[in-house]
């Protein structure tokens, strides 16, 4: 590895450049004073004009932002309940898979696989399918259909993270709680859920980001009186990219970086605390051995 270090560095630089150049351009031009809609590819000077524009009612971002937030909150809330309970149900089933009939076990395995399928199904298919379903059911298109659709693709994110966490938890903890007199419901509320909570929260953050960001599915199930932020952005860029869209993208980018950075910091802290405990344990063990 050391021998190839210069090449590895060059390779790394190229990859990073390719990944981040487009984003950099957007950030850079959000501060560009050139008001051109199509030909603003010349940097004329520094300006915060477009950030100001975002708050101007004329650009009309207020209502879409509000509906996007409402949709994201509701769909995350519903998905959190569905995904968490689903994960608990599948990981902590009362009967061992090996003790079930072959048919029931196969069904269980299938259930596990199928429940994460929405992540893999192309969004366009999901969008068309939901459109067809809601038409069939006669549901009026609008906030309700948007929330329901977002739940469909949000559930797997929460389900997967919670399932991973539960699988890594010692089932002995739940047994110990039963042993100490907790009913299954009490075990759920005092042991399982509190221990799964970090995973629920991180799944929710992921799902929230997915919901805020979704365009394709929302496009299909959107109604005449509702509009989400991505849909609004799409309609604003039909004729060139207005400079305030750059500003909006930069704001959203900053929000994402903040959330990611915060969660990274939190994890790093937890890891450091963990290491500190291990070191202390080691010291105590040595002290015990020293006395022996």
């Amino acid at each position, binding site marked *: 590895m050391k021998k190839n270090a210069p090449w590895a560095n060059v390779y790394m630089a190229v990859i990073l450049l390719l990944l981040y150049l487009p984003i950099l351009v957007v950030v850079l031009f959000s501060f560009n004073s050139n008001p051109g809609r199509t030909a603003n590819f010349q940097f004329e000077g520094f300006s915060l004009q477009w950030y100001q524009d975002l708050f101007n009612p004329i650009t009309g971002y207020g209502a879409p932002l509000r509906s996007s937030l409402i949709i994201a909150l509701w769909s995350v809330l519903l998905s959190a309940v569905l995904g968490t309970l689903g994960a608990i149900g599948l990981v902590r089933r009362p009967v061992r898979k090996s003790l079930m009939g072959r048919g029931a076990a196969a069904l269980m395995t299938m259930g596990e696989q199928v429940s994460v399928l929405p992540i893999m199904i192309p969004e366009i298919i999901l969008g068309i399918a939901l459109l067809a379903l809601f038409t069939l059911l006669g549901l009026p298109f609008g906030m309700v259909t948007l929330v329901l659709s977002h739940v469909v693709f949000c559930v797997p994110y929460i389900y997967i993270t919670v399932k991973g966490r539960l699988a890594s938890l010692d089932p002995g903890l739940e047994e110990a709680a039963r042993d100490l007199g907790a*009913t299954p419901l009490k075990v759920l509320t005092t042991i399982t859920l509190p221990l799964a909570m970090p995973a629920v929260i991180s799944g929710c953050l992921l799902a929230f980001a997915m919901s805020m960001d979704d365009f394709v599915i929302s496009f299909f199930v959107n109604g005449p009186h509702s509009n989400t932020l991505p849909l609004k952005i799409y309609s604003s860029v039909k004729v060139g990219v207005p400079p305030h869209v750059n500003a909006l993208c930069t704001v959203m980018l900053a929000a994402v970086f903040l959330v990611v950075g915060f969660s990274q910091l939190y994890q790093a802290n937890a890891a450091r605390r963990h290491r500190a405990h291990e070191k202390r344990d080691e010291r105590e063990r040595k002290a015990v051995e020293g006395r022996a």
Partner: protein
Amino acid sequence: MPEERTVLLSLKGLRKTFDTQEAVSGIDLDVYAGEFLTLLGPSGCGKTTTLRIIAGLEMPTAGTVHLDGQDITHLAPERRQVNTVFQNYALFPHMNVYKNIAYGLTMRGAPKAEIQEKVEVMLDLVQLTGYEKRMPSQLSGGQRQRVAIARSLVLSPKLLLLDEPLGALDLQLRRNMQQELKRMQQRLGITFIYITHDQEEALTMSDRIALMREGRFVQLDTPKGLYEQPQTAFAASFIGATNLITATAQAVKDDEVLLDIAGFDVPCFDSDWITPGETLLLSLRAERLHLSCEPVNTACWVRGDLVESHYAGGERSSTIRVPDGQLLRARATTEGEREPTLGSAVYCWWNKDVGVLVRDDREGA
């Protein structure tokens, strides 16, 4: 223990099958109130499964569990007056020491003041006063272990199950905790069922030991009975160091059997189940064998060559090869001994009542 003992726990015909594997194959057991009973056996012998059935964490395939005369075979674990100290402690990582110990009482809906009082008594008992606010991850192995014990004892169970509670501790701590546990058990008068695969631990702590193998009890006895009177070769070899010498029964008369060991005639007690001509094993504890350079005036002896001899301070361990090639190990005190010469002929003798005849039930036999 007094003659009139009350049976606290009664297992009858207990069986447990996982898939096609039978983990417990027919166990009958009466545990008396206040007793310290140990389930001893190699890993995979079914001792943990038995314990989990008693705790209600596993349903038996067949058989019944009675606690205090009441059938609890199908009672949910939270409704049994039985608590468990788990092998890996299973402390709740998101609760501090106080909340861990208070958990059971909280589940019972005990008033706050009562919980606080009882938890404080427990903290004092396990010498963890002042550690209330610590999280389990901030405790050492020994401290975690004590929290796990306090968490179960605070509920004053009729029966406490301990699944290799000292398995993860280092030797020194283990010895200390063994004594501490035994003292606690005697002070509180709670019945303990204790699991271990450490025979020394079982011998020093238990009132009775149930030696298990492949889902069955091999022998249920006091530590002394198990050590002095093993009923099978497995029991003899699992507990302590022993010589298992191949012997042929020559003649059986009254309560004595005359054995042929490598050409020597050796009498032994315990004969009613032996048929002449049968090949058996004679279990002789290494520390019960005596060595002598001159012929001895006793019934039980063999002569062999001293092939190995190690001085180990207070005692010497010697290996003697008898004429048919079998090796005997002897451990004798070095007090006043003459330095034996390697290769010389020695007489190996023992008292007639220390030899125990068993049938060979060892692996591959």
